[in-house]
């Protein structure tokens, strides 16, 4: 994991699967690291993933702890977080 992230490890779930990430990891980075490149489906059904990485484009939106449409590139992982993409 990135050198910027600190060494403490957090446990969370991505589409129900347990995952471990370094503290300081962005949700978008955690999801990509788990092998999931598709974050949502566009209105015509195309697969989409993060584009801008800085909270502008809304392509990386997914559900966090039951709250839909969260921009995963702007949110840092927390212990026990439940993350789900809408294509799971």
């Amino acid at each position, binding site marked *: *994991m*990135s*050198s*910027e*992230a*600190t060494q403490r490890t957090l446990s969370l779930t991505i589409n129900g699967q347990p995952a471990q*990430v*370094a503290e*300081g*990891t*962005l949700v*978008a*980075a*955690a999801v*990509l*690291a788990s092998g999931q*490149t*598709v*974050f949502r489906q*566009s*209105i*015509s059904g*195309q*697969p*989409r*993933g*993060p*584009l*801008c*990485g*800085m*909270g*502008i*484009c*809304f*392509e990386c*939106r997914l559900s966090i702890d039951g709250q839909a*449409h969260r921009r995963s*590139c*702007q*949110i*840092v992982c927390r212990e026990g977080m439940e993350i789900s993409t809408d294509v799971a």
Partner: protein
Amino acid sequence: MSLERYDVLVVGAGPAGLAAACAAAEQGSHRVAVVDDNPSAGGQIWRGEAGRPKSPSAAQWLERVRASRLTMLAGAQVVDRPEPGRLLLETDAGPREIGYQKLILATGARELFLPFPAWTLPNVTGAGGLQALVKGGLPIQGKRVVVAGSGPLLLAVAVALREHGAIVRVVAEQAPWSKLLRFGVGLAFTAREKVQQAVGLWGKLSGVRLLSGTWPVAAEGNGRLEQVTLTNGRRRWHEPCDYLACGFGLVANLELPLLLGCGTAGGFVTVDSMQQTNQVDVYACGELTGIGGLEKSLVEGQIAGYSAAGREDRASELFAEREKARRFAGALGQAFALREELRKLATPETIVCRCEDVTAGRLAAQPDARTAKLQTRCGMGPCQGRVCGAATSFLYGWPCEPSVRPPIFPVATENMVAR
């Protein structure tokens, strides 16, 4: 909702905003706060360096921020100005209203994305976008990356990705060598340290093919990116890759300035010598007033901060330095001007508005942006035209200034109702 009040409120915690906040806070009695929607301060260039700064300038400024008694409100998105002297923020903990006497806008810039076939595939990201994700913990070790688009950011991104273990195959800069050379020669006379920076980056990219006059014409892959087709205008070839990091320059984040009624010209906020906009007690600095990079942001930020704190004397001492930074910005714009061929990359099937899946074929038939919006919903999705607005401006010559109304960011209904 209780109202917190500050003498000086800064929006944006990148270099310009932090410099402005420090300059104002160091004048003593002023209560100063900085708001930013990112999880921590630093903006894009110093992203992730709040804990352990990597560059000397980041170390120096982040230390100055710590030493000054300013309030940092990270993870807070400005969504509205309900009345003059107040901003409404959305935070994880719900809505929050902040009152201010003077407001300094340092909202920075986003990347310019231009559509080409299959640019919507997962793993096609911005250039700064991929760097931001890697700084945020995305493992890039051993991944094959093509960096493409335009601007000095490309080299910096390539170096950063490589330091994290990426296999950067190609950096494709659309500007021709002749323009880059003229830019470099000009800099050698006016800003030698810039040339040294560029040469330093270059030296860290041995083994990477650095191609000028080269641009992407299509991404390809089944459900995710597998390769990108590049061209230099004479021939086309494929580059297999895991990521395409592609940005064609920067676009100022004008939504909040426009909401406040600030005057603009050519896509940037206009300011007087003290960085004040045409709105009294509202200042703008950094990329908002013209794309110019770190030095311009720092000096303009300080001028805005001193000025907002009533220290015009200290602000005016920095005018010469600002002049130099602005000359660099002007040269930058000329060297990296976008080539005509980029207007023709999208085929009729290529999606331009990613939120509403509006294709280039549908947009080409529209006379103007307003009609396009009404007929196709282009620019009406969650990003509110932040991505497609600048693209349609470049492709079709439509005015690039967004029509802004509150809330300037999608906001949870309960947070609007709570007030």
